[in-house]
């Protein structure tokens, strides 16, 4: 079967804006269905997948993934009439009667959540697509399917933790013999993801978006000061569940919609709410530290409990909380599991893949093998790159190399001279991380690099850390992990070996950790070759690897976006495949 999976709820934010006017923009993110994406699964294998934001250029957009679907079809040379099923990563149909209880909710259901709304969106693009071949998949089941059916394991524990699905904050499954069985589901009013997002909002950042910034801020703080608050706020129950009473303080529809009483409780008992433009104080760092510690403990509690209950020693995870690299690092070091797999598109974009895989599994088509490094997005050939370059010919100069080895040697030489290099090759990544195809790379040993990248290139908060990409053969040399440890998706924090922390200032966070990506020549050959070229010059096959975008923008997709972003930032040089692009500055180059 040819199955298109989709995620996102196009009308969720517009509905909220119509019914709750006057909120701050970031408060409209207290809603469902962000991160639209499409994934094409053919005969049980994913052949193309991408987030819609990369096409609309609206970060985290929930718009129906017209662009991403169009890309998936083109990538496989299919027409819509070749598609057997469309599967959506939400299924609210079981909750219709509950939403009928009040007029606002009833309208929310009809316009945003219902099957009719989904069918309407599909028919808006393809009026002929048979409605009976459009399917809805429970949100957490879609997350779980995305993890289990790409884990390569026949048997494992599958844990989904996010803010919420239709109604749940976490769901635990066993995967056995190609089937997922629910073990326990935790209601959303006890969702650790929602608590984390509410504190994120409270600290002046964006709900359902900036949680990773709080994770980055946490190591600057001392968890002890606010530990009692979180220990009381989050009860870890003996049955493996979690209780968070402060999320149930809201009494009216209005309060529940925007967690007004829960937020008031945070103001009165945790700390004053910080304005987005306000200074980040020690108190905010301490809150972030205690919150992160609380999340770490909660994830360990839930996963640990069900590991014991089921006797399973392998863990596959998805859901937005599974992108929390600090918690993942704690899990990895806990010894609770022999192996852990985090599906790299663990956020809601990944439910497009999961919805499609769930349907494929029902058809008996799954060949469960470990997800490759997810280069599943669009790639652009030399003709398209040349067309983009010609648009900017007055502003850029180009040097063409004849093969990858020469390109890597030239890039390594620039990196060695302290230059910031944009590295654009092959197919775009699926999931939030740039893994070597839409990356900005630099020397991890340069002491000024972190501040320079934050201020001049990414134009973002000064506290934000950067992550390293290292050739897999060297991972145990620099980081405190066994030789050959595979961390290809950059979703786990590990310790930098103590003696190397001073040597690697650009990628070592204040607590001595780094969110490392290991690069294996079998899976990510070209990026590995770049690292080896860097290693030849520096005896260190490692770079800083950060996504090719600036604050508030999605990662670049097309060569044109790559050139524009390069020209508008402090990036020193851009490699578009084997073409070096530099600014024209009175005949001088970098």
């Amino acid at each position: 079967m040819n199955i298109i999976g989709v995620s996102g709820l196009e009308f969720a934010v517009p509905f909220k804006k119509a019914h709750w006017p006057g909120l701050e923009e970031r408060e409209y993110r207290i809603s469902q269905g962000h991160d639209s994406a499409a994934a094409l699964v053919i005969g049980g294998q994913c052949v193309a997948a991408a987030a819609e934001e990369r096409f609309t250029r609206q970060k985290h957009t929930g718009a129906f993934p017209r662009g991403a679907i169009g890309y998936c079809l083109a990538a496989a040379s299919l027409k819509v009439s070749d598609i057997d099923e469309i599967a959506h990563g939400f299924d609210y149909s079981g909750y219709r009667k509950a939403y009928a209880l009040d007029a606002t909710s009833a309208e929310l259901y009809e316009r945003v959540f219902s099957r009719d709304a989904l069918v309407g969106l599909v028919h808006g693009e393809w009026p002929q697509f048979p409605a009976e071949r459009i399917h809805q998949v429970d949100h957490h089941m879609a997350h779980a399917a995305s993890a289990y059916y790409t884990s390569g394991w026949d048997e494992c524990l599958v844990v989904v933790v996010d803010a919420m699905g239709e109604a749940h904050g976490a769901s635990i499954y066993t995967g056995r013999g190609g089937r997922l069985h629910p073990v326990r589901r935790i209601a959303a009013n006890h969702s650790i993801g929602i608590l984390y997002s509410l504190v994120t909002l409270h600290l002046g950042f964006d709900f359902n978006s900036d949680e990773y910034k709080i994770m980055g801020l946490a190591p600057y703080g001392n968890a002890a000061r606010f530990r009692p608050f979180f220990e009381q706020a989050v009860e870890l129950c003996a049955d493996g569940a979690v209780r968070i009473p402060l999320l149930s303080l809201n009494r009216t529809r209005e309060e529940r919609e925007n967690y007004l009483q829960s937020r008031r409780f945070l103001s009165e008992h945790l700390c004053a709410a910080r304005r987005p433009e306000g200074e980040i104080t020690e108190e905010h760092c301490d809150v972030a530290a205690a919150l992160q510690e609380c999340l770490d403990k909660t994830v360990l509690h839930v996963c640990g409990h069900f590991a014991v209950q089921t006797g399973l020693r392998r863990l596959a995870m998805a859901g937005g909380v599974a992108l929390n690299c600090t918690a993942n690092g704690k899990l990895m070091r806990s010894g609770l599991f022999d192996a852990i797999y985090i599906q790299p598109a663990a956020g809601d974009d990944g439910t497009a893949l999961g919805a499609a895989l769930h349907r494929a599994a029902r058809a008996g088509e799954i060949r469960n093998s470990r997800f490759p490094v997810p280069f599943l997005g669009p790639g652009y050939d030399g003709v398209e790159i040349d067309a983009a370059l010609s648009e900017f010919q007055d502003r850029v100069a180009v040097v063409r190399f004849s093969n990858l080895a020469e390109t890597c040697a030239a890039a390594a030489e620039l990196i060695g001279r302290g230059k910031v290099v944009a590295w654009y090759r092959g197919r775009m990544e699926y999931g939030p991380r740039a893994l070597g195809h839409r990356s900005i790379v630099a020397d991890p040993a340069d002491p000024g690099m972190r501040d320079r990248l934050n201020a001049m290139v990414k134009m973002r908060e000064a506290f934000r850390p950067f992550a390293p990409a290292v050739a897999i053969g060297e991972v145990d040399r620099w980081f405190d992990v066994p030789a050959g440890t595979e961390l290809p998706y950059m979703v786990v924090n590990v310790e930098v070996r103590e003696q190397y922390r001073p040597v690697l200032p650009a990628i070592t966070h204040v607590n001595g950790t780094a969110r490392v990506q290991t690069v294996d020549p079998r899976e990510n050959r070209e990026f590995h070759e770049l690292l080896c070229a860097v290693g030849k010059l520096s005896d260190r096959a490692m770079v800083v690897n950060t996504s090719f975008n600036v604050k508030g923008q999605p990662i670049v997709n097309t060569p044109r976006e790559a050139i524009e972003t390069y020209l508008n930032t402090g990036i020193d040089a851009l490699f578009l495949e084997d073409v070096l692009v530099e600014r024209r500055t009175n005949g001088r180059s970098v």
Partner: protein
Amino acid sequence: MQLSPTLTDSLVDEVHALVRSFSPNVESAHSDLLEAGILDSASLVRLLFAVEARFAVAIPMEEVEIDSFRTVAEIADLVRERRSARPARPPKEDALLGEIHDLFLSSLSVEVPSPHEDLFKTGILDSMTLVQLIILLENQFGLSLSLEDLDVAAFATTEGIARLVRQLRTPAEAIGRP
């Protein structure tokens, strides 16, 4: 109105457990926390927050007298006092109904005043909380509830919910369900 002895005792036990998380040495519900040196101004504030968070009550700082916090029993009294509507506790013999009331209290942070209280009219349940309640009932009683097969009106009172749970707990073959 006083709560029934059963609930009072469980509340005291819960408060006791909470205070013990601050200091394991509190032996009885009547131990003086000040004399025992457990409470100073800083720890009082922390305990206050903890009590508020755990029992979902508001205890404004300016209204608190230190004496209200001298013993576990007094803290439990304060919690009881701060809960707005005083419940007519479901009949003690109806354990299931009691369990459902406890579920509302522990998992939705709301004390349902009586088994006949209209949960929709009072706003205790709306679309958002009903969905949560269904999950909580599923977990608590090991049920699988599909709203599509149920009448939402069955959830209007805790009495009705108890009836529903009782029905669904009956083995499927006995009532002819597949």
